């Protein structure tokens, strides 16, 4: 498989802040590549460089074999870009928005309707409604349709699921899967939600402008070394405090309704349970648990600290 996006030690500074520190990676043609990290990790800067909207301060990158600085014109023809916040015209109707974006790329809705059909059909009955009056999920579908209407080679989606309800998020990822399998479109997508990693073919975990790890979601989970335990008790609030104070507990993070912890060698589970009970905890439950991407992210962050 050939690489359609290649980044070579990309750097970007805003004043003294390093937004990107010498990032290198390759995205294969026809894959969904997820860039996962919290707000401020450098995702948007990276996307803007790859979509020719920002100049890198160091390094270089190519999209579809074209340099993002020298051949920015040609790249702009070949990519679809959906920025982080809703960036369509709220005072134009759904159909007018789609028509406008088709036309500025020199094409028509009819010519590429097959590409957007699955997505656009879901909002077509609102085609005369103003885009500003759509719900979050529908806005996102319209934005995706507009980014797709000119049949781009690569699709750049910057945090497309932020602010969208869980059902719409799931639908959205299913649409992306379909775009990849049926139309072979390469998709670069960024998200702050770790649980969305599983939808991607490969992911990169980004923090402070650096990739901490890059692999398939399964590969990242597999490389997680420590044994992970899930802890619960009746006094959840005090529990985290007590866990972190106990020096035999290496890490403890809140994870949904439980805490995920790793232990130092030599501490057994009954010992930990006994310790917590002497601290006054009742109904202590400690169960082994398989790590998720979020656990891997936390572990990696701990290592770099």
């Amino acid at each position: 498989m050939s690489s359609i996006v290649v980044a070579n030690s990309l750097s970007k500074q805003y004043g003294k802040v390093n937004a990107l520190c010498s990032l290198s990676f390759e995205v294969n043609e026809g894959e969904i590549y997820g860039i996962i990290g919290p707000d401020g990790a450098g995702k948007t800067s990276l996307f803007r460089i790859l979509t020719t909207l920002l100049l890198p301060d160091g390094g270089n990158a190519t999209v579809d074999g074209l340099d993002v600085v020298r051949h920015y014109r040609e790249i702009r023809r070949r990519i679809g870009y959906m920025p982080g916040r809703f960036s369509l015209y709220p005072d134009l109707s759904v159909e007018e928005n789609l028509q406008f974006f088709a036309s500025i790329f020199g094409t028509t809705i009819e010519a590429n309707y097959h590409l957007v059909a699955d997505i656009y059909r879901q909002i077509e009955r609102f085609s005369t409604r103003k885009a500003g009056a759509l719900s979050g999920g529908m806005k996102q579908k319209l934005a995706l349709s507009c980014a797709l209407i000119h049949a781009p080679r690569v699709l750049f989606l910057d945090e497309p699921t932020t602010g969208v309800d869980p059902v719409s998020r799931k639908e959205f990822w299913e649409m992306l899967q379909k775009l990849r399998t049926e139309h072979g479109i390469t998709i670069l997508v960024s998200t702050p939600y770790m649980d969305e990693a599983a939808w991607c073919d490969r992911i990169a975990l980004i923090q402070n402008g650096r990739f901490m790890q890059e692999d398939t979601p399964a590969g990242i989970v597999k490389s997680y070394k420590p044994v992970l335990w899930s802890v619960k008790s009746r006094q959840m609030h005090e529990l985290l405090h007590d866990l972190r104070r106990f020096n035999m507990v290496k890490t403890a993070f809140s994870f949904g309704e439980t805490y995920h912890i790793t232990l130092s060698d030599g501490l057994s589970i009954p010992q930990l349970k006994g310790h917590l009970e002497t601290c006054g905890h009742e109904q202590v439950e400690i169960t082994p648990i398989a790590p998720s991407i979020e656990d891997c992210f936390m572990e990696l962050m701990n290592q770099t600290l």
Partner: protein
Amino acid sequence: MKQFLTFVRKEFFHIFRDSRTMLILLVMPVVLTLLFGYAVTTEVKDSRVAVVDFSKDELTRRITDRLATHSYFTLCAAYENVSAAEKAFLRGEIDMVIVFPTGFAADFHHGGNTSVQLLIDGSEPNQASVRTGYTEKVMASFMQELHSGKPMSTSMQIIPEVRMLYNPQLKSEYNFVPGVIGLILMLICALMSSVSIVKEKETGTMEILLASPLPPIIIILAKLVPYFVIACTNIATILMLSYFLMGVPMAGSLFCFLGISLVYILACLSLGLLISTLVSTQLAAMLLSLLLIVPSLYFSGLAFPLESMPTALQNISSIVPARWYVSAARKLMIQGVEARHVIRELGVLTLMTFMLITISLSLFKKRLE
């Protein structure tokens, strides 16, 4: 080309679908024109005149009648002495008192030389001087009539005759029309267009537009075209309003007037473009535009005559496009001069436009920063 037209159509949608924008673009020019035409007038009408006549002869009666029938004066009282008239002044009942000394007619017929006293409220100097002027004119014409009956009179008097050129009735509507057009075009072409460009930056749509194959110059042109069209519509509206409703003449060539207006529109649009490259929020664009428009108002000669400004301010005014436009428009519209007399204004405006376009295009970014 098709991309360009779709873009222009989209711009018109933005304008037509926002009632506030429509209000500013189409209603405000009409309101401003009517306001300046009828409300903010510098003409002095209906001056309330009182008479203190110590002579009470045939001549003073005739002069009083003459003033009373004049359309700019209303005779409202006669007082026995000056102090009574002064009290009426203080009560705000009158604007002007005319005092005839005793033996007015006798002095006039014998010595051929006599005088009247005018008491005028000087707290509004402009109005006071206009009233003085009107009264002098009334007196002068009366004297002329008196003498024309007996041309061989020994009492030859030199009567100064002041004739107002170009605007014989000193009608203020005449003067303000070019100024109002100058101001409105500045508002629409600089303020509204820069706000509309910056809006795309602020809402993030510029990001998608830049990431599209559309050349930035096309984006900018397409955004400016609707404002150009609306500006032209406004010139037509204002000209028609002033011609048909207020009777302002088009003394010179309409063609030349439209020509220089076109150049001025381009200058304003390029100023709007420059503003839009300098700021990134709509609020900042609006403030910066207003910062530029307010001096235009002062320096264009619309409100205050340039000639009475200190030289330093007059020099500053020469970098204000509106000043050159208003000057040229007045010459063409009211004085009715030939095109060659506005060559200087045309040249300056053209130069300004080229400079503004060059600067803003060099500042316009084909990327986000």
